[in-house]
């Protein structure tokens, strides 16, 4: 893995450019003084202040010295001073931060506050101050910049250290009794080394510029020594007559700084990249930040012969760039229609394409994903033919989305009032007081007590369940005809989950809002939804009325999924049914039925040909060998244990026994 990461870093174009520039700079720094020093020091008053010429590519300075030679000859000084400053800064900052992280809470707070105060002053101001105290000169400059950088390094080390020290894997190591030294060596350092390295690389660029600035101001390197900053300063006096002088030195500083930054950026990128895999978590995280704003009322629906639907997706596919320039397709030809006022549940394991389907419905698939869809209708309007501005309004009003983690969708720095009322004020042109009343109404609808007082609170002052209800309230303030909720209760307690399910049900009953509820938990969908859609490997494999599908699943995957859920009636003596193997990865999708590698009923046809989704009565099914209605007791494909089919634990009062 380490080598893969390294390859990712080295292979990035930014890295190549950065490395090439730095290599040149280093070579120049090494040979510079020897090769160009004489030329750089040779004064020739007769040739002072000349512009660009064949003998002086960047002209000459006041004393007639060749500027290019001076820039090249001072590369070593400039670079070494910058590195010295960074080393000094990290030598002071990192240990300080690390120690602060290890102190007991009170000491930690104290040091943390000190660092915070130090950080509040702009670095260059601190440096100027230190410089005037210590005295001008190269040594003073390095000391000043180094000290000015130290608080930043300290804060970083402290934050990273605290994060790693608080992680579960460190807790696990402590439970095992791993000693402090080993803990630091094997757990803490390897996990903070990369970000620290990146920061140091980037900081080199800052130090270079800051030192140049000091020298330019006459506080850094003193004559007769010189560095890029001095050359720049001297050149600036003649900027109008011989601009090349100043520009040359400036370019050297900027290019080298850029090289450090490029290198840091691509290191950061490389360390992050997980070899192009489409991580569902990452996608969800991206998706969450894209919550549509409330907008103006929707455009009137286009006259159409067909009955209005809340949502229609025809042949929806989502693509992402895969490893080695390929395309992966995590959603593959999904057809989904949600009638007006209908509540539909989408169930499936993580990675089955549920969230991407929802994001695509709302046009929120994050970059670099691409969506291909035959037809996308929301509230009866064909979204494909819509002007982007119209579309934005539609998404703001007719469609609301709620995501799993309300904390990431609410702005933690803003009081609720702002978050709830601002868009209303902007888009609906109502007064602040009116907007506030609307917000209170919406919160009260979500059974949030003391709504008026809550408006002045910050999101972190509320419990998870309350935040989730606030998210739903926000989504509903534009009276949407469709609410898409992606795992809205997954992180919540059953009590809060039950409240939210009841609220969604009431919402549907009172306002006719259609709901698409995405969950990996069939029982949550059973509590709320009329219809249930089962997804596997980016495709819909079965859909139908919830009660019927649960009572008699006909796709082997649906049956296996239902059998795996322990309920309050499950026999305690039997092992739970589990599904062997793993869901297919979008990068290695089987050619035929996606479930074939885990399905005991799979045959050659299954492995070669994709079963199409075919209507069968109230049901749609994508399976070459579906379990039939009369298949009582038949063990479905793919179940790990023959005991699964036993009637022992699976009978559910009020319904038929779940066929497994």
């Amino acid at each position, binding site marked *: 893995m380490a080598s893969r990461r390294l390859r990712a870093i080295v292979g990035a174009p930014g890295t190549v450019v950065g490395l090439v520039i730095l290599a040149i700079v280093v070579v120049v720094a090494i040979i510079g003084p020897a090769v160009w020093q004489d030329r750089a020091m040779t004064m020739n008053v007769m040739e002072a202040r000349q512009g660009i010429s064949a003998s002086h590519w960047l002209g000459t300075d006041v004393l007639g010295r060749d500027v290019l030679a001076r820039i090249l000859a001072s590369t070593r000084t400039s670079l070494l001073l910058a590195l010295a400053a960074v080393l000094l800064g990290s030598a002071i900052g990192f240990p300080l931060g690390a120690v602060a992280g290890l102190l007991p809470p009170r000491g930690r707070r104290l040091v943390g506050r000190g660092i915070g105060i130090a950080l509040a002053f702009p670095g260059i101001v601190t440096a100027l101050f230190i410089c005037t105290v210590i005295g001008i000169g190269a040594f003073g400059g390095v000391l000043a910049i180094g000290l000015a950088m130290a608080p930043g390094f300290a804060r970083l080390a402290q934050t990273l250290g605290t994060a790693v020290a608080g992680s579960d894997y460190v807790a696990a190591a*402590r439970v095992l009794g791993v000693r402090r030294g080993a803990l630091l060596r094997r757990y803490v350092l390897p996990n903070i080394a990369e970000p620290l390295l990146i920061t140091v690389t980037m900081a080199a660029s800052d130090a270079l510029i800051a030192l140049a600035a000091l020298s330019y101001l006459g506080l850094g390197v003193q004559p007769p020594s010189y560095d890029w900053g001095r050359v720049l300063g001297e050149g600036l006096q003649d900027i109008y007559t011989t601009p090349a002088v100043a520009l040359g030195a400036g370019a050297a500083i900027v290019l080298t700084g850029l090289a450090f930054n490029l290198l840091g950026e691509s290191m950061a990128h490389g360390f992050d990249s997980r070899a192009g895999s489409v991580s569902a978590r990452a996608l969800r995280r991206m998706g969450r930040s894209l919550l549509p704003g409330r907008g103006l009322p929707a455009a009137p629906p286009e006259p159409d012969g067909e009955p209005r639907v809340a949502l229609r997706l025809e042949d929806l596919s989502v693509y992402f760039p895969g490893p080695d320039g390929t395309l992966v397709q995590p959603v593959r030809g999904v057809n989904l229609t949600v009638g007006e006022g209908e509540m539909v549940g989408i169930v499936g*394991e993580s990675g089955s394409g549920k969230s991407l389907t929802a994001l695509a419905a709302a046009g929120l698939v994050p970059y670099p994903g691409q969506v291909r869809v035959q037809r996308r209708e929301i509230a009866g309007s064909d979204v494909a033919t819509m002007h982007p501005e119209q579309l934005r309004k539609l998404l703001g009003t007719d469609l609301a989305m709620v995501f799993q983690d309300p904390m990431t969708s609410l702005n933690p720095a803003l009081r609720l009032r702002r978050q709830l009322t601002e868009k209303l004020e902007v888009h609906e042109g109502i007064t602040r007081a009116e907007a506030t009343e609307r917000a209170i109404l919406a919160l009260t609808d979500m059974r949030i007590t003391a709504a008026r007082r809550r408006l002045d609170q910050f999101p972190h002052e509320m*419990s998870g369940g309350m935040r989730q209800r606030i998210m739903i309230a926000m989504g509903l303030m534009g009276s949407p005809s469709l609410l898409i909720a992606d795992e809205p209760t997954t992180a919540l307690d059953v009590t809060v989950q*039950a409240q939210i399910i009841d609220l969604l049900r009431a919402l549907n009953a009172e306002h006719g809002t259609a709901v698409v509820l995405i969950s990996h938990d069939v029982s949550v969908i059973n509590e709320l939804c009329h219809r249930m859609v089962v997804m596997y490997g980016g495709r819909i494999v079965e859909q139908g009325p919830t009660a019927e599908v649960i009572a008699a699943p006909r796709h082997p995957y649906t049956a296996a999924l239902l059998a795996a859920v*322990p309920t*309050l009636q499950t026999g305690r003596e039997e092992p*739970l049914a589990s599904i062997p193997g793993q869901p297919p990865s979008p990068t290695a999708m089987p050619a035929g039925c996606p479930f074939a590698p885990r399905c005991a009923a799979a045959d050659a046809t299954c492995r070669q040909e994709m079963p199409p989704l075919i209507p069968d009565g109230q049901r749609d099914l994508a399976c070459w060998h579906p379990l039939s209605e009369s298949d009582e007791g038949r063990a479905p494909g793919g179940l790990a244990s023959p005991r699964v089919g036993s009637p022992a634990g699976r009978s559910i*009062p009020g319904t038929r026994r779940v066929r497994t």
Partner: protein
Amino acid sequence: MTNTSSAERADARHDRQSADDGSGLVLADLRVTYGAGATALRAVDGVDLSVPRGSTLALVGESGCGKSTIAKAIVGLAPSVGGQILLGGMDVTTERGRSAAHFRRRVQMIFQDPYSSLNPRMTVAATLDEALALHTGLNRVDRRARAAELLDLVAMSGTGADKYPAEFSGGQRQRIAIARALATDPEVVIADEITSALDVSVQASILNLMREIQARTGVAVLLITHNLAVARYFSHRTAVMYLGRIVENGDESLYTAPRHPYTRALLDASPSLAAHREDRVPLAGDLPDPHDPPSGCRFRSRCPVGPLTHQDRTVCIDREPPVVDPAGLAVACHFPPEQPAGR
């Protein structure tokens, strides 16, 4: 797992067992406080529990009620612990008692999120080897063999011990974490929401695996979960926790005939595959501020049969209900149903 090595370990276990009284893990009047002074939070406030060897105790309750804090207190990750923690009859509340009892070898923990409980910079082999090196006294070659056995035990044999955690799925990572916990051959394993970050099908295989392991090794399990179906399926006894206190402790009948109104509310709220219950009465309000719990019965601000609905039940406001004790009294309520009520 080869016959010889498991037999040897069984012997070793036997030796160790003879040193204690077989009572497993016992918590007596456990108290954990976060912070001090005016802002002190009594996250666990007088809890009695027992997890006999070979059995599973499920600890259920809403998030923030103190379940994880109990786990942390047991393994020594919580500050300022009061009361007593006993392991096989030996007091392991203090660090001194812990080292005398070889506590770290005998009690292990599995965490909720397998994405964060494994060091991303250590291979599977290194992770297991570390645990073995610390506690088994095996040499390098034997440790290697034992690590392979452990991976076999969690059905992960031949899946690349030289890989890093990022290369495994969530379920596989949780298996690795289980293998790590089992490396020291513990007598007690604390499993804190170990399946709630996993898909149902993966959850099923992890629960099956834990059961198999328990049948094979006789390890006692403290299972912390907010999923009542999982708790019921997996455990021999269940303790229900509310705001730092145990409110009810019982066997399977707790699920069919709950005696505390809170247990009943939790059961009512659990989603199920049975027909919808649209008539369910949701629990009023949110969890009260744990810094300032209600006087008397802590559940009274939400209790459907307490002073909210019965004005004459002022005793709920004035007096704390009795403390649940795993051996004797099983419900902390002034008005438990006369007959255990059916659901």
